[in-house]
């Protein structure tokens, strides 16, 4: 134990001698979580739209007003001719063109059916689908109003249909409530995996590993002593980013704080252990970096369900998602934050995470024997 304390002191000293490390591991995550938490939203609102109004009548102005007045669209400009408008669409300056034909107002007044055209840039397929649906229903509502106004006598009364949409588990349907816990998990993974990945390979590259080899340290002591300082950094990071999530973004932590910390610690075991494993299989720091980023971080980001639902993936790829610790940690943090559930709901995930951590740590410690000798 004394030897361990000694090693720990040495590692901490090395960290202290590197003062630029602190802003990067403590300040950067907070800034990132703040910015990205705001940016990561899939709400399809304020879609920029250009209107080609060939009519310029009160009726056309009313329709334009309706688009501009809704939260779904922002009218960027109203022009008379199509010249240059299609180009705006191609250049991505606008997302949609609404074309109102000449004689629109007169046709509406005479009760003649009239068609407006909506051209949408389909490259962002998902946003476009929603935006088109919104445009169609805005026009349909206006049509119904006009029809009702045109023949008040003939009409038998009809009430409006209102869909009362209730969302379970995330009633505000805030994509922020979904994304912020995800960004939190991702940030922790990036920072701690990197720190773990550099832990031993640096000594290897600098040639100081020899000195460690001749010390009477046991293998596990070396592993623990190497990782503990980074583990501490990880725990402080958890504290920081959870605070930002709760106090800045006001995402209610409905579940248990103790459970969040406990399982985050298990998650850090996985990410630090993964980093250490990378460290033992790499000869240079550059190799360690490449291996960590391409073979571990990319799959973790894309296949964990962080943004893209696992259930949408082809059946052949889905199993890959379940060998990734982030997949389980995401279920856990989102469950704790959004649903306020506890271990009774995600004990399989917690167990998987724990098993993952133990296995990767053991592997890394065993591998390290070859490295040291």
């Amino acid at each position, binding site marked *: 134990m004394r030897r361990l304390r000694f090693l720990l002191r040495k590692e901490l000293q090395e960290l202290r001698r*590197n003062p630029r*490390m602190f802003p990067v591991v403590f300040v950067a995550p907070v800034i990132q979580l703040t910015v990205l938490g*705001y*940016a990561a*939203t*899939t709400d*399809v*609102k304020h879609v920029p739209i250009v209107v080609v109004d060939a009519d310029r009548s009160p009726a056309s102005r009313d329709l334009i007003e309706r688009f501009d007045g809704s939260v779904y669209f922002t009218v960027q400009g109203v022009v008379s001719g199509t010249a240059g408008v299609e*180009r705006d*669409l191609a*250049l*991505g300056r606008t997302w949609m063109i609404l074309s109102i034909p000449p004689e629109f107002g007169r046709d509406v007044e005479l009760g003649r*059916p009239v068609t*407006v055209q*909506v*051209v949408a840039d*389909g*490259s962002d*397929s*998902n946003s*476009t689908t929603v935006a*088109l649906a919104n445009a169609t*229903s805005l026009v*349909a*509502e206006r049509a*119904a109003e*006009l*029809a009702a106004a045109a023949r008040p006598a003939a*009409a038998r*009364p*009809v*009430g*409006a*249909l209102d*869909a*009362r*949409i209730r969302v*379970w*588990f995330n*009633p505000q349907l805030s994509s*922020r*409530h*979904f*994304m912020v816990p995800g960004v939190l998990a991702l940030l922790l993974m*990036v*920072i701690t995996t*990197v*720190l773990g990945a550099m832990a031993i390979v*640096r000594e290897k590259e600098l040639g100081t590993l020899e000195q460690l080899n001749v010390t009477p340290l046991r293998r596990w002591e070396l592993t623990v002593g190497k990782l503990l300082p980074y583990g501490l950094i990880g725990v402080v990071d958890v504290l920081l980013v959870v605070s930002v999530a709760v106090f800045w973004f006001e995402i209610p932590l409905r579940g248990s704080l103790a459970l969040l910390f406990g399982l985050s610690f298990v998650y850090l075991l996985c990410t630090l252990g993964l980093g250490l494993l990378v460290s033992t299989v790499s000869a240079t*720091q*550059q190799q360690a*970096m*490449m*291996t960590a980023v391409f073979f571990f971080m990319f*799959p973790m*980001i894309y296949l964990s369900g962080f943004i*893209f*639902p696992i259930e*949408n993936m082809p059946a052949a*790829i889905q199993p890959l998602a379940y060998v990734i610790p982030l997949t389980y940690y995401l279920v856990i943090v989102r469950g704790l934050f959004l649903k306020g559930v506890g271990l009774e709901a995600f004990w399989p995930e917690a167990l998987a995470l724990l098993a993952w951590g133990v296995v990767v740590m053991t592997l890394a410690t065993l591998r390290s024997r070859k490295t040291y000798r």
Partner: protein
Amino acid sequence: MRKALAVGRKELHQIRRDRRTLVILLFVPAFFLLLYGYALNWDVRHVRLAVLDREHTLESRALVSAFVNSSYFDLVASPGSMAEIERLMDRGEVRAALVIPEGMSRDLRSGRLTQVQVIINGDNANTATTVFGYAQAIARGVSAALQLEALGVAAAPPISVDPRVWYNPELRSALFLVPGLIGFIVMLSSVISTSLSIVREKERGTWEQVRMAPISTVSYVVGKTIPYFVISFASAVLIVLAAMLLFDLPMRGSWAGLVLAVSLFIVAALGTGLLVSTLVDSQALAFLASLLISLLPTMILSGFVFPIASMPAPIQVITYIVPARYFLVVLRGIVLKGVELQAFAPQIGALVAYSVVVLGLASLRLARERG
């Protein structure tokens, strides 16, 4: 220039000795495009829907068929009670449920506001937001249609919409995501490959030799980046070809424009890595810093996944310093829309300005360190 080439040759030598790094840089990106191109998909279609229709009237059937015919919802269950809906939702067998209360038709006919209930599983807010939008639009559409029908004008509503989708008429999300993935992968591999280059010399103690070498700082920087440029470019070509072969990514614009845009983007990314390398003093820190400035920002702030137009204004301002933002507009414009490069002068200008600034800052830092 000769000196710059000499530095380049030395760097290339070093890369060659490190086979694994070379293989990762060259081939792994194309492989990952393959994997992720198939895996990533957020087309929200075929949402599993349960319908509890307590009415079975003309109006209720119109509503149900509007949901089912929309192609967004698949009717998979007709539960008999709310408790059953709860069970279906909890077990994840359905993602949405439509509940039509008794008396809806009667209420509608007597001119009252009538509520139907739509329940959505919100655990994935992204999917749920989209489903929310569809459900709302469908209900509003049916409402308007019913009103028109009551007025006897169902055959021809006074105003209708003729929707057309350009560039991606089938609305495949792969066509949107694959260019984003290309930008993401190119950015990451370029930043990472150079961010260690100078700090490594410092850490290994070979920096002193570089300081004393009779070579200008600019030649040194050029020499350091050329090999990585060649590798990143080769890798980018592989990725783009893979995207076109495997994901039917079209090529509607000019190859020359694409090559220029890709090259500029790589220079911007390499410059970013180089700047990081001059600012920090250990490889671990360089690694961390380059990931923090490239990984998440390129994914979240570039318009790769999340539309920039939907972000709050102050965050939109920040996206202007993310080079991938410009690259993605140009890439999607050339590949999907067939726009010629000249049209993207502002984006190209921004990429050039960005590269000049980061490379200039990196050279200044280096010049100062060399004394």
